[in-house]
């Protein structure tokens, strides 16, 4: 039996023989598009990719009808799926990603989620107030509210002198990168990540955690006010605390945004609501991360260098004003 020009082949074999060269070509183009990206392919190649992809989908439709060759079907399924991803889901351009986030994305997201930010700050403020009042009522509350590893020996039985020594102390043992690292991974960063992470699962833990953080801060502050060191501690805390505590509130707002989307999705499905809320929440999380890094820099390098109380206030609240300016003024104007 001689095979003259495929005359004697069965339908599916003939079908394959006629198109195989095109499939092979498409296969090469798909590999090229995946390794180099569609944008860097020349015009003829990109055009061929699109048209060959369309031909391959037709081939697949026909093969599903006529062919019983499993290997051929599997090949066409895989080839068209790969080509589809190249044609319809190409790689996005990455240029300008960071600057776009800094100038437009982040400030707009912050402004859009102002109710949540307000709620976050409110949680912290209420916590501080409660802790403060509780301490004034009975100083034993301090032991309840303040985690021991954070207090570092600073309690109601410490002398005023030793408290002052900590605020204006010169050596804490570490400088530079090491200090930066340890401050960044201090208590507050962990709180911020927890507050955001817990917000996703439900709002309540995030709110409670922020409130609790405020409680210990309030008790700590009341202790110093009690000893007449209120203003000094204010300066000591301001230099990085303005940024750091705001970062916690921002993270809390991001978590709350996600949590409310899960709890009260409204007309959307829960997944849809999460997707919608995620657009802003992720920006809030990144902003919180940037602020935490900035706070760690201020704490590691600024706190030891700047000993003057009023200068500490100026630096701390100045940084706060800069953040505020970014959030309120950035990204306005034409879209």
């Amino acid at each position, binding site marked *: 039996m001689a095979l003259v020009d495929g005359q004697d082949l069965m339908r599916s074999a003939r079908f394959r023989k006629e198109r195989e060269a095109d499939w092979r070509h498409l296969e090469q183009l798909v590999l090229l598009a995946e390794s180099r990206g569609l944008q860097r392919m020349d015009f003829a190649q990109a055009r061929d990719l699109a048209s060959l992809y369309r031909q391959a989908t037709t081939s697949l439709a026909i093969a599903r009808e006529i062919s019983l060759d499993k290997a051929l079907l599997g090949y066409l399924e*895989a080839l068209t799926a790969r080509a589809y991803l190249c044609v319809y889901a190409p790689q996005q351009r990455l240029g300008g990603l960071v600057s776009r986030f800094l100038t437009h994305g982040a400030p707009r997201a912050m402004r859009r989620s102002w109710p949540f930010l307000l709620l976050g700050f409110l949680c912290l403020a209420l916590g501080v107030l409660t802790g403060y009042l509780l301490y004034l009522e009975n100083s034993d509350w301090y032991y309840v509210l303040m985690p021991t590893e954070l207090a570092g020996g600073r309690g109601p039985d410490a002398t005023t002198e030793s408290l002052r020594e900590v605020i204006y102390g010169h050596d804490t043992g570490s400088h530079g990168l090491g200090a930066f690292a340890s401050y960044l*991974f201090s208590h507050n960063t962990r709180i911020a990540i927890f507050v955001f992470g817990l917000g996703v699962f439900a709002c309540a833990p995030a709110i409670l955690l922020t409130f609790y953080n405020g409680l210990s801060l309030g008790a700590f502050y009341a202790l110093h006010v009690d000893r007449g060191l209120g203003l000094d501690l204010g300066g000591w805390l301001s230099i990085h605390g303005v940024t750091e505590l705001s970062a916690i509130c921002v993270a809390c707002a991001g978590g709350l945004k996600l949590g409310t989307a899960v709890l009260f999705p409204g007309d959307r499905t829960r997944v849809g609501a999460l997707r919608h809320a995620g657009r802003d929440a992720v920006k809030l999380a990144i902003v919180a991360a940037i602020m935490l890094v900035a706070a760690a820099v201020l704490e590691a390098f600024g706190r030891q260098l700047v000993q003057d109380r009023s200068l500490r206030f100026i630096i701390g609240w100045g940084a706060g004003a800069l953040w505020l300016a970014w959030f309120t003024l950035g990204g306005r104007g034409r879209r």
Partner: protein
Amino acid sequence: MILRRWKNRRRAGPSPDTLMPPEGVALTLPIAGVGVRLAAQITDILLTTIATVCLIVLLAVLDLTDPNTLFAIAVLLFFFIRVPYYVLAELVWNGQTLGKRMMKIKVVSHDGGPLTAHALVLRNLMKEAEVFLPATLLLMLDSASPLASLAALAWIIMGLLVPFFDRYRRRLGDMMAGTHVIHLPVPILLKDLASEAPVLGANRKQFVFLSHQLDHYGAFELQTLEALLRGQSLPASDNSARQRNETIQVIVEKIRKKIGYADPIPPADRLRFLQAFYNAQRKHLEQRQLFGDRREDKFYAQADQET
């Protein structure tokens, strides 16, 4: 009852593996399971850990910092290598990290469009909240605070269980970002069995099958036979070659009995017989399909009667 309703809903929708492109021909993009993604994840964690350890060793050798803060720096470095690694790798390789490349899986957008930077950043940031944070929490647990441990455990279990209840095996981060993970299909075109011209010796006769002999089997049996024939070209050791021969013999006898092929097949011709039968059967089934008579398997006649 809830379980049944859930199962019904699961069956009702179209298969999660299919995707309808604008061309209108359904494509198959198989969803990657939890196991293969875990393997990719472990690979990635190993890679980032190795990078961190190298940097730490370098820092220690150069004596840039004092040993007390080395641990804090190690944590910091791991964090600052890990987070950008996932985001940048998926941005640069369009949805694949090194681990995912090795496992041949890929992140795709849920609606089939391009992957946005926002989606990739979000799904990887959520990985911190979902996987790494609970994991570090688990490492730092102490028995002194049972309440905290329980809460942490509940959190971890909740996060890890989400993919098992989702049709697309999505994490929470995937849901938010609108992505899911697929197996990247690998196109391999094998030779067409039917186009291989049978080698005919001078004194070898040709196998001829009659139409009624080909009416016994359907597409499923044909494709099983195809898999068997393709397997013959693979190299085999002595032992498995003998086993293979026995299988072939059994199958040839079975087919011969079923279709009523009278002549005995000599051992040397068995493969040739199967090859010829495959060709004839495929030709026959294709012919039938042309007339609108699709035969899925050998029970096609009964299925016709039932409907």
